C-alpha cells in the first residue's frame, strides 16, 4: 500500500515541479557531477594518460617510438571517437538511428578545408605574383586563386559558397552553423511529421546520399570528385615540421574528445537525460506525460550534429584530403556499426567501438596482418577483412547486443 502511494506521489511531484520534487529527488542532487558519473573521471584520466604517453613517444618529443603518420592515425581515431559518442547519444540514448551523422562530420571537414585551401593557395599565388612588374589588383589575385583551386573542374571563378573562405573565424563559424542549421531544418521536418524508427533511418540516409551526390558534381563549387586537398599544410605554419603539427592536432583532438565527453555526460544527467532515455524506450508514453518530445529530439539531433561537425573539422586537417566519397551513406552506416560493436547507451562504449574497429580496420587493410595459407587458397586480409567485419558484426548483434563494453558489466558484477 505504501509503495503504491509513493509511486503515485512521485508521478505527481513531477507534474507539480521543483517545489515538491525536493522531498524525493534531493539525494542525487547533493552529489557532485563527477560522483554521479564515475566513468567521466576514469575516462578523462585514461585520455590524459594516453595523450601524455603518445606525446612522449612521438617524434616531436625526440624519442620517435611512434611515427608521425601513426600519431596522425591516433589523432584521427580520437576524432572518430568524438563523432561516435555523438552518434551514441543520438542513437543509444535517444533512439534515433541517424544514418546521416557522418555527413555532418564531412560538412565540418569541408568548412574548415575551404579556409585551409583558400589561405594556402592565396600564399602561393601571392608568391607567384610578387615577381610581376605591375602590382596585381584585388580582382586579379582572387581570379588567380580561383583558377588555381577550381582549374581541375574547369571553372575559374569563386562560387557563392566560398564567400567567407578568406576568413578563418567566419569559416569556423560555418563549421557549427551549416550542420547545425541543416540538422535543425531536417530534424524539424522529420520529427514534426512523426517520422520514426526505420523510416527516419532511411530518410537520414537519403539526406546523406543527396549531399554526397551534390558534392560529386563538378559544379557544386567544392571541386566535385577531386574534393579539397593539401589540408595538412596549415597556413602560417609552413615552417613548423609535420611532427609538431601532428602532435598539436592530436592534443586538440584529445581536448575536443574530453570536452565532448564531459558535455554529453553533463547534458544526459538528471531529469533531462531521463526524458531522453524515456523517449528511446517509449516515445508515445513520454508524449502522453506532457513532454514536447519533438523539441527534445530536435535538441539532441542538432547538438550531436554540431559535435560531429567539430570532430570532422579536426579530422580532415590530419587526413589532408576530403572528397565526396567520405560523405557517402556507407560511412554513416559504419559509424552506427562502431557504436553497436562498442556498446550503445554508454559513452565509453562508443569510444571503445570506434577506436577498436577503426584501428583494427586500418591494421587489417593496411596489410599488417599476415596472410593465411590454406594450401588451396591464400586468405589476403585486404580482401577478406570486410567479410570478416560483416559477419562479426552480425555475430555481435545476435549474441552480444550490449556490445563490447557490456563485457565490463559482467566483470563488475562478478566482483561485487
Amino acid at each position, binding site marked *: 500500500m505504501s509503495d503504491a502511494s509513493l509511486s503515485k506521489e512521485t508521478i505527481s511531484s513531477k507534474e507539480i515541479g521543483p517545489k515538491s520534487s525536493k522531498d524525493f529527488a534531493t539525494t542525487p542532487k547533493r552529489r557532485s557531477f563527477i560522483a554521479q558519473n564515475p566513468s567521466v573521471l576514469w575516462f578523462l584520466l585514461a585520455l590524459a594518460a594516453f595523450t601524455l604517453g603518445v606525446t612522449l613517444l612521438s617524434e616531436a618529443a625526440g624519442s620517435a617510438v611512434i611515427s608521425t603518420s601513426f600519431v596522425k592515425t591516433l589523432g584521427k581515431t580520437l576524432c572518430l571517437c568524438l563523432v561516435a559518442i555523438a552518434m551514441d547519444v543520438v*542513437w543509444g540514448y535517444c533512439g534515433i*538511428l541517424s544514418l546521416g551523422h557522418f555527413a555532418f562530420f564531412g560538412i565540418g571537414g569541408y568548412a574548415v578545408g575551404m579556409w585551409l585551401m583558400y589561405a594556402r593557395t592565396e600564399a602561393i599565388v601571392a608568391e607567384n605574383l610578387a615577381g610581376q*612588374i*605591375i*602590382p*596585381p*589588383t*584585388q580582382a586579379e589575385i582572387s581570379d588567380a586563386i580561383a583558377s588555381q583551386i577550381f582549374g581541375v573542374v574547369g571553372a575559374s571563378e569563386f562560387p557563392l559558397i566560398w564567400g567567407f573562405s578568406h576568413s578563418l573565424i567566419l569559416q569556423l563559424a560555418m563549421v557549427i552553423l551549416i550542420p547545425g542549421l541543416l540538422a535543425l531544418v*531536417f530534424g524539424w*521536418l*522529420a520529427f*514534426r*511529421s*512523426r*517520422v520514426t*524508427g*526505420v*523510416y527516419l*533511418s*532511411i*530518410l537520414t*540516409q*537519403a*539526406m546523406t*546520399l*543527396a549531399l554526397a*551526390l*551534390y558534392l*560529386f*558534381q563538378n*559544379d557544386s563549387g567544392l571541386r566535385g570528385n577531386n574534393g579539397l586537398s593539401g589540408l595538412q599544410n596549415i597556413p602560417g605554419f609552413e615552417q613548423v615540421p609535420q611532427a609538431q603539427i601532428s602532435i598539436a592536432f592530436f592534443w586538440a583532438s584529445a581536448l575536443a574528445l574530453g570536452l565532448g565527453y564531459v558535455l554529453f555526460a553533463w547534458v544526459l544527467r538528471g531529469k533531462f537525460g531521463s526524458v531522453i532515455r524515456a523517449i528511446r524506450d517509449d516515445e508515445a508514453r513520454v508524449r502522453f506525460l506532457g513532454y514536447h518530445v519533438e523539441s527534445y529530439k530536435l535538441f539532441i539531433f542538432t547538438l550531436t550534429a554540431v559535435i560531429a561537425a567539430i570532430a570532422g573539422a579536426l579530422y580532415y586537417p590530419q587526413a589532408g584530403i576530403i572528397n565526396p566519397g567520405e560523405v557517402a*551513406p*556507407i560511412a554513416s*552506416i559504419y559509424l*552506427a*556499426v562502431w557504436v*553497436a560493436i562498442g556498446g550503445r547507451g554508454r559513452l565509453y562504449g562508443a569510444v571503445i567501438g570506434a577506436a577498436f574497429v577503426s584501428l583494427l580496420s586500418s591494421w587489417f587493410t593496411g596489410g599488417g596482418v599476415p596472410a593465411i595459407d590454406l594450401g588451396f587458397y591464400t586468405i589476403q586480409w585486404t*580482401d*577478406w*577483412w*570486410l*567479410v570478416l*567485419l*560483416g*559477419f*562479426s*558484426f*552480425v555475430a555481435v*548483434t*545476435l549474441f552480444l*547486443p550490449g556490445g563490447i563494453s557490456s563485457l565490463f558489466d559482467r566483470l563488475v558484477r562478478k566482483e561485487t
Partner: protein
Amino acid sequence: MLRVLFTVLMLLCLPVAGLAQDLQSLLQVHKDEIAKPKRKSVGPVLDALVASGHPALSQFLQNWQEKEVYQRTGDEMFFYVQESGDALTLLDIETREIVTEGVAEDAMAQIKPNGGVRKAIGEALVQFQLSDPDPARRADALDAISRNLDASQLEPLKRSIEGETGPSLRLRKERLANYLVARFGKTTGDRVTAIENLSDDLSVDGRAVLSQILRTKLVATQEPTDSMNLARIVTPGEDEELSVHAAYEILVDEAGLPPIVTQEDVLAIIGANVDGGRAGGIALAAMDNWDMRYRAYDALAEQGVAPPRATDVPALVSEWTFAEVYDEKDSDVTDAAKATQETVETRVAMSQAADLGLDAISLASIYFLAAIGLAITFGVMGVINMAHGEFIMMGAYTGYVVQLFIPDYTLSLIVALPLAFAVTFGAGVAMERLVIRWLYHRPLETLLATFGISIALQQLAKNIFGTQARPLTSPGWLDGAWVINDVIQIAYIRIAIFVLAVLFLGLLLFILKKTRLGLEVRAVTQNPRMASSMGINPDKINMLTFGLGSGIAGIAGVAIGLYAKVTSEMGSDYIVQSFMTVVVGGVGNVWGTLAGAGMIGTLQKWIEWLNPSNTLAAQTYMILFIILFIQFRPKGIVALKGRAAGD
C-alpha cells in the same frame, strides 16, 4: 506486223546511236582540260561529257578521280595502264582491252586532278550512282547528297526518281528532292510548297533544312532596315543577349571603328614603357587598381606611344541599329519556313514528351522490380533488408555464371531466371532462419545486421568475380529498338523489362489474393498474433515471405544485369532508390510500390529532362523532393487504413 518490226529496229538502233562517238574521241575534244584540269574551268567539260551520255563515262570519271588515267605524251591519247615489271601495259580507255605492251614509263604522264577537281568529278558522278543497278551504291549516293545539300544535285536526283525501283530508296529520293527544292527551288511558290511539306518531317535532316533556310547574320547598319529580310532588331544592353561590348566589337569589324583597348594591352603597354619605376608619370607600386592603370595608359597615349582608348562606347553603339537578317532574301520563303518550323517544333516537343513517358515507364518498371521484393518483406515483417541490393547482385551473377555454361543466350536466359530465383530464395530463407528471426522485436538492429551481411556479401562477390564489370549479354532478338518516329524510340530490352514487371505484378497479385499462402501472408501482415491464434504458423509464413521477396530480387538482378553491367556494387546503386520507392509508395502494398516506382521513375526522368547534362543533380533533387514528400504523406501514397496500419 510491220509496225512491230519497225519498233524492234528502232530499239536496236538506239544503243548504236549512243555509241556513234567512241569515248576516246569524245575525250580528245577536251583533252587539254582533262589532262590538266582546273577547279574553275572543269565544270563545262564535265557538263559536256555528261551530256554525251556515253555508257563507259561513269567508269572513266571514277578512274579519273582516282588518278588512274594516263596520257601518252606522243599523241595525247588517254589510256589506263597496268604495270608489268619496268614497263607499262596500255589498256583501252573504253573497253579495257590491251592495246600495247612494254611501253616505257616516261612515255606516259599520269593525270593527277587536284582536290577541288576531284570533288567536282564526284558531284558529276553522283547522278550516275543515283541510277546505279546496285541499291547499296544508290544509298551511298543519297548519303553523299544529304551530307552536303547542293543546288546542282536537284536535277539529276529528280531524274533518277522516275526509274527507282526500291520503295524505301524512292521515298528517300523524294524526301531529299523536297529538301533540295525547299532550299534551292526556282520559284517562290515551289519552295513554299516544299517547305510546307516538311511539316510532317521530324528527322534531324528535315529540321536542319528549315534552320538553314532561316539562318541569320547579325549586322550593324545606320540605314533604314526596310529593304532587308529582317528576322528581328537586337538592342544592345548590359542584360541583353548582345552586350554593348560585343556590339562594339561588331562595329570594329564592320565599320572600322578603333578597337577597344583590352586590359592585356594596357598591361603590355605599361610594362613596355617603364622608366625608373614609373610609367606615364605614375609609380608602378600605385598601380594595383584599374583607375591608376588606365590613367597611366592615357598619359602614355598622350605621349603618342600607344593608341588612344575608345571613349564613350555606349554612345557610339547607340548610333547604330543591330539586326538579325536572314541570309535568304525572299521573305515569303522565310515566313513559310518559320511557320513550318513552329509546327515541327511543336510536334517534336510532343514526341519528346511521349519518348520521355516511355523512358519513365521503363525506369519505373526497373524500380518496381528492384523494390517489390523489399516491399513484401518490409510490409509483412516490418524488417528492413539492407542486403536486398546484394540479392539483386546475386541474381545478376547467377545469370552471368549460367551464360558461362550455356553459350546460347536465349536458352541461358530461360535457365537463368528460375535459377536466380532459386538461389536468392535459398539465400533469403537462410538469412531469415539464421539471423532475422532472432531480431524481430528490434527492427533497428535488423537493419544493421542485414547491413553487415550486405558488406560481407559484396566483398565476397568482389573476391570471387573480381572488381571489373561482367557482361550479361541479352539474346539477339532483344537487341535494337522499336522506332516509332524520328524522336520516339525504345529499346526492346526495356520493353522486355516492362513486360517482366507486369508479369510479376500479376503473379504477386495472384499469389497474395488467390492462394492459401497469400491469404496467410495477408493475415500475418495485418495482425500476426491473431493470425497465429487462427492456426497459421507465422514462422513459416515469415520464412516463405522472406524467400519470395529475395527470389524476386534475384530475378530483378537478371533483368537489370541485361541492360546494365554486373558488378559487385550494383546492388548498392539500387538499394536507396528501392527504399525510396517503398517508402513513397506506402509499405506493405503491391499497388503502393507500383505507385511509388511510377512516381520516382517519372520524376527522375522529368528532372533529367529539365537538366540533361547532369544526372547527379537530378538524383539530388529527386531525393530532396522525396524528403519533402514524406512530410506531407508520411505513410506513403497508398497508406494502409485502419488497424492494419499498426503503431
